[in-house]
């Protein structure tokens, strides 16, 4: 995973598992909440992502429960998963920081020169404020 870009879906699934193990439905809801509703995974997409993350060693099965005759599997992050999520978060934060800096520089460069008379901030020649 480290060698290729992490998808948005994979990033949110890892983030959903960062604090505690969750099952499929729990991950779906958590991803939706974490992304403010922007990422709504389908079940087919979720299991494709889980397969890939498990194959990359970023998540593992935590435990299985049987509720009313149906299987519920909980997944958790591995050490590699925590490291990959941390690295991705750092990468995104660095990108966001660079964007913020450039925007601020751009605004400063295009701002009109301020011609409004300003009170002097230092004593005048007469020794008082003009």
């Amino acid at each position, binding site marked *: 995973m480290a060698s*290729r870009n992490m*998808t948005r879906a994979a990033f949110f699934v890892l983030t959903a598992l960062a604090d505690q193990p969750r*099952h*499929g*439905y729990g991950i*779906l809801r958590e991803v939706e909440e974490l992304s403010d509703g922007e990422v709504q995974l*389908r*079940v*087919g*997409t*979720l*299991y*494709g992502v889980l*397969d*890939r993350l*498990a*194959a990359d060693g970023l998540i593992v099965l935590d435990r299985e429960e049987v*509720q009313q005759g*149906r*299987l*519920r*599997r909980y997944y958790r992050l591995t050490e590699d998963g925590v490291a990959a999520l941390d690295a991705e978060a750092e990468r995104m934060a660095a990108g966001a920081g660079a964007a913020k800096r450039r925007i601020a520089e751009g605004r400063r460069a295009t701002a009109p020169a301020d011609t409004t008379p300003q009170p002097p901030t230092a004593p005048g020649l007469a020794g008082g404020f003009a």
Partner: protein
Amino acid sequence: MTTLLESRYRTVLRLLPAYYRREREEEMVETYLWDVDPDTQDQSRPTLGEVASIAALAVRSRLGAPGAPRRYVLLGSTVRLFALFAVLVQAAAAVANLVLELGWAIGRGGPGQHLFLSQFTDQGLLDGVVTAAQWTLPLLWTVAYFALLHNRRRLARASALLAALPTLWPLLGTLTGAMGAGDPTFATAFGLLAWLPALALCAAHHRDAPPARLPAGTPGLVFMTACVVMGVSIVVLPAAADLAWAPASCFVVGALGWLLWEARGGDGATPGGALALAALGLLILTVRVAALYPWLHVPEVPAAYLGGGLAQTGALALLTVAVAVVGRRDLVAAEPGLS
């Protein structure tokens, strides 16, 4: 008790291969039904989006997803190599045709250039635009080929789909009965030669698939060799050079080279290569026959065209069978029950 909604979800999940359902079905059903009120389950249905996501997962899990059985890994490798080989053939054909036709036009001076340009200017605006698109869009096969081998998959997919578009025009012409529309069988076969590789590329070279890799040589060297083989085949026997001629010649040389390489031991690292070549051979053979067949009973057709076409058909058929035999050996090794 199983509700109607649960039965419907289980029906949708039958799109997935058996190995995947054994592992995941119960868990996925639980995820689907978690917060659905049991009292309303008989009135609900899986949404189109849910069905589409399972269909996409079904394709990926059959084309060598993580943890897939050996036969699906082989199938995935075969489809990826088929797409790569076919895109190479299309890319080299587009470049070789363009270079030869431009060379012909320039070599004949003013009249040749006028004749070349007249195909864009003498038939009205719409036909001129279509002709220009039919000239330029196939060059995107080259972009698709190099993008694929440099792991730029999204660019490769978009380029291949755009490059395949011009083959729809003759098909539309035959469907609408337009004047000058070609033979519908050939138009269909030629369209398949473009669209099957483009769709295979989209399905099998997804972001989780292993990177595309040629069995031998560098991307540029292999591409140049394919261009030269196609160009030489046209220059040596121009009377036989219809639209199937150059791709078929390239396949014959490539398949012969593959068989010799396999006979000397190969590298053993390209599972599915022979099956991919067999599929491509069958497709090119179909185009070859579709191009030749309408002319078999026309008395004025030059003997060189018929002779060249028939010889090429025989060579294609023989080599396709030979690589299919090698491919079956790979298949049996992956799935011993087939032997």
